[in-house]
């Protein structure tokens, strides 16, 4: 259908447009200069953004479904009935796949990056991504604890390492290179962890620092659109900000066209103190570093008060959380590659640590000045559900609203965090960058039609029922909250998929994946290398290991040619 969005107040930071009243034309799923529209959407007095992009969420795959099976109680809420050909579903922090897609679409999000795909179980991740309607998905393949990676890093064999990464992305239909507690999850195979980025991984004679730097080098050699995407060592431990700073410094010299490292759920990595008793915010130190350097992007990993489910590939971290909470615990080690842990959690506003955690996320969102470097996320569902993004936006835009929340939570937030002293407020342009254009650029997807509204871009568009000229976000934060919860309408690939919260059309989303260039002889060499050891170490055959085309019925393959 040919569409015209008329008189909207348009924000398109990648094209330098900030709050201009203009028309947007859509034809064949793309944005065009102009066309004869069959349908006109009157957007006067409404906010027009590119479709939202979640750079880091856990929405599909083995860990998410382990979480669902661990927590039937989570599915007693968030119940949605089948309606008019639209599927039913359940769940709040770990919603079933169908409603996951609907909920993102209602909020104006059209692309979501699944943050952790274990290669051996990549088929599972893909099966679920295909079951999530409307939104485009991409999955980050886990590399930080892979035996082949560690061996090649130890040998400093960067040629083979880049062939291996290329081969694996192709084999798993993955989008990028993810590291989770590099080295630590391998040690968890023996019930242990690593305590610093310079301690050796048991039996492998490498350090997390070496793994991080080598993967960053190789990632850039392969010219992947996204940088390495890292969940640092020591997540969630008091005093871990030093590990975070050290890890970021490892790749300081590697900055090229884009960042050399995406630091995910940074909130969980910005803690000072030595014990939980004196744990405090170190967001200032972290922000200062990122403000001074150009090689880092990050997402917030905001914590939201209430019940949620934590799930990461960081097996040892989840077990230590379990020992603190004592509720229930699932674990899933994946041979040769990675692990996973899942526990339910309740972030309480009466709890000192949780209140400080809440503050740190927002501090990072405000103190990291350049909105192109820090993006909105809850590390869904670890800090809270993605459904709370509108709350985060309203906090970022209103000091008053933050103060109000601060007055209601544990007062350690005033002594051991600094949010109360920050008066910065984000504007609509910043929010547009932090929720779509920024993630698009950090992912390299802006070159493939995402995160902007220029001619040729994918027609993924969110229209919100709020007029930036008519509202004072600082004073009227409730209006902001309300507007960002449900779009006036969401357009995906040129189709109106949601209007006022009602799902109109359940189109299939695409699976975005990267196919890096690999010379034939390199390909053969690495295949031989893998083949030799595959039979001995794995419990499936090499020929049954790949994600076959049948699992990606709607691919958006990004082929990377090396000039």
């Amino acid at each position, binding site marked *: 259908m040919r569409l015209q969005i008329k008189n909207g107040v348009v924000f398109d930071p990648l094209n330098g447009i900030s709050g201009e009243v203009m028309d947007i034309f859509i034809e064949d799923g793309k944005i065009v200069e102009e066309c004869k529209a069959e349908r006109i959407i009157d957007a006067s007095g409404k906010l027009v953004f590119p479709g939202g992009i979640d750079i880091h969420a856990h929405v*599909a795959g083995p860990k*998410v*479904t*382990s979480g*669902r*099976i*661990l*927590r*039937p109680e*989570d*599915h007693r809420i968030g*119940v*949605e*009935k*089948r*309606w008019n050909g639209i*599927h*039913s*579903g*359940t769940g709040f922090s*770990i*919603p*079933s*796949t*169908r409603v996951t897609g609907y909920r993102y679409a209602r909020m104006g999000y059209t692309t979501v990056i699944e943050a952790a795909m274990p290669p*051996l*179980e990549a*088929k*599972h991740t893909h*099966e679920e991504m295909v*079951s999530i309607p409307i939104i485009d998905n991409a999955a980050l393949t886990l590399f930080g604890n892979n*035996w082949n990676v560690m061996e090649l890093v130890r040998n400093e064999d960067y040629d083979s390492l880049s062939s291996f990464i290329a081969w694996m992305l192709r084999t798993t239909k993955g989008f990028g290179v993810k590291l989770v507690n590099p080295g630590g999850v391998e040690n*968890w*195979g*023996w*019930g242990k962890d690593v305590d610093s980025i310079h301690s050796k991984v048991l*039996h492998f004679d490498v350090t997390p620092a070496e793994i991080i730097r080598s993967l960053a080098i190789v990632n850039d050699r392969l010219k992947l659109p996204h940088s390495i995407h890292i969940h640092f060592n020591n997540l969630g431990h008091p005093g871990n900000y030093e590990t975070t700073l050290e890890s970021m410094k490892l790749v300081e010299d590697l900055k090229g066209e884009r960042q050399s490292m995406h630091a995910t759920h940074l909130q969980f990595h910005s803690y000072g103190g030595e014990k939980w008793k004196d744990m405090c915010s170190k967001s200032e130190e972290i922000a200062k570093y990122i403000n001074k350097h150009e090689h880092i992007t990050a997402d917030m990993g905001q914590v939201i008060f209430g019940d949620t489910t934590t799930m990461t590939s960081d097996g040892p971290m989840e*077990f230590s959380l*379990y*020992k603190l909470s004592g509720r*229930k*615990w*699932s*674990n*899933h*080690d*994946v*041979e*040769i590659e990675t692990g996973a842990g*899942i526990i339910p959690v309740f972030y309480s506003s009466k709890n000192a640590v949780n209140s400080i955690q809440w503050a740190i996320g927002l501090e990072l969102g405000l103190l990291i000045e350049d909105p192109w470097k820090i993006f909105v996320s809850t590390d869904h569902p670890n800090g809270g559900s993605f459904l709370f993004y509108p709350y985060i936006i309203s906090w970022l835009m209103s000091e008053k609203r933050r103060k109000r929340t601060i007055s209601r939570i544990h007062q350690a937030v005033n002594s051991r965090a600094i949010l109360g002293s920050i008066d910065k407020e984000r504007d609509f342009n910043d929010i547009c960058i932090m929720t779509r254009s920024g993630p698009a650029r950090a992912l390299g997807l802006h070159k493939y039609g995402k995160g902007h509204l220029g001619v040729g871009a994918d027609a993924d568009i969110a229209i919100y029922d709020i007029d930036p000229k008519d509202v004072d976000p600082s004073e009227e934060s409730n209006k902001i909250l309300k507007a960002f919860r449900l779009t006036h309408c969401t357009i995906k690939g040129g189709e109106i998929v949601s209007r006022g919260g009602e799902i109109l059309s359940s189109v299939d989303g695409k699976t975005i994946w990267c196919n890096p260039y690999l010379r034939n002889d390199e390909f053969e060499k690495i295949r031989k290398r893998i083949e030799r050891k595959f039979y*001995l*170490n*794995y*419990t*499936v*055959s*090499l020929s*049954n290991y790949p994600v*076959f085309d*049948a699992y990606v019925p709607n691919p958006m393959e990004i082929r990377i040619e090396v000039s």
Partner: protein
Amino acid sequence: MTLHTDVVCPFCGCLCDDIAVEVENNEIIEVKNACELGYSKIVNHLERYRSPMIRENGKLKEVSYDDAIEKIAEILSSSKRVLYYGWSNTTCEAQKIGIHLAELTGGVIDNTTSVCHGPSVLAIHNVGYPGTTLGQVKNRANLIIYWGCNPLAAHPRHLSRYTTYPRGFFRQKGYEQRYLVVIDVRETDTAKIANKFIKVRPNSDYAVINALRAILRGHEDVIPPEVGGVPKEELVKLVERMKSAEFGALFFGLGLTMSRGRYKNIENAIKLVEDLNRYTKFTLTPMRGHYNVTGFNLVCAWETGYPYGVDFSKGYPWYNPGETTAVDVLLRGDLDALFVMGSDPAANFPKEVLKKMSEIPVILIDPFPNVTSSFADVIVPSAINGVEAEGTAYRMDSVPIRLRKFIETDFLSDEEIMKRIYESVERRLKG
């Protein structure tokens, strides 16, 4: 002649994917590497149906696929409440459509979990699941425990491929570097080859696990000289062995889930494994039977939020094991029809349930005649998954593996049959 290697065995939850099959003129000449169970499943000399059938005046009459599918659609679209049961011997692709069909018609969907590892799933809901893929065990474990199961009979290659005999990265000497313990109420074949067999009095597993946990937590003093038929010193020794293992793996079967205590046994076993992780590395894995029983639990959980026994009569997924599970739904007697795919409920459901089955239309989709066939009013023969049709299955440790197809057939695959039924029912409900 064509040699197919790395074929996946579609029989038990081991899902061995190293089978070699020689095919000539679309016939299987030889099968290598499979155990006897797998061999006979792949070669299969069982009788097949020749065509779809509909029962008329008590007699089954051969009809076309189209006629059978239309008949099924007619029954499903005119029923108020249908139970969709089975699913453990079919592909995830067919299961997914089955779940949507249940949603479309407001029915109940359940798989064989409710009559086998249902208690394990309930225990997981309560206390969690410290699991692993089997390769982690192969590469690292030096203590293997089988509790209430006899893999040599039910999962014949489990020991040789995954746990006890194979060489692993950190266990280059294989068997020599591992210690095998079997805990059971009788001395099974597996018990006979174990380094240590611990015989438990029937229905005493719960007490034995309790004693192990108490000893582990340093309360050895309160343990009586004998628990569940096991001398105290044996239990103390076992705890020592568990604590000092570099990597321990506990596997359990229906002997634990179906004996007195049921889900409480499993809860306790999970708790034991959690406790052990404070000392060393320990994992737990249920020995799932059918080759894709695990797959159903996963697909059902991601599509609906719940792993089995889902009722759509309210328009959204509702789960309450004991109420929304197959036997309970059948016994209540408010069903209009029973739809069975990939299972033979009549072979193991209780008598009262069979009586209820005989009172309603039964639809059966399966490659082979089975006990349920005699209850069926419509029978649709399907291709054999993993031989004549491809698709996804999940191993007992949740690793997905794609079943291969190496024999051509005119039989439709489960997936294709489900697709056609769904489309026809949808058309009728709209029309």
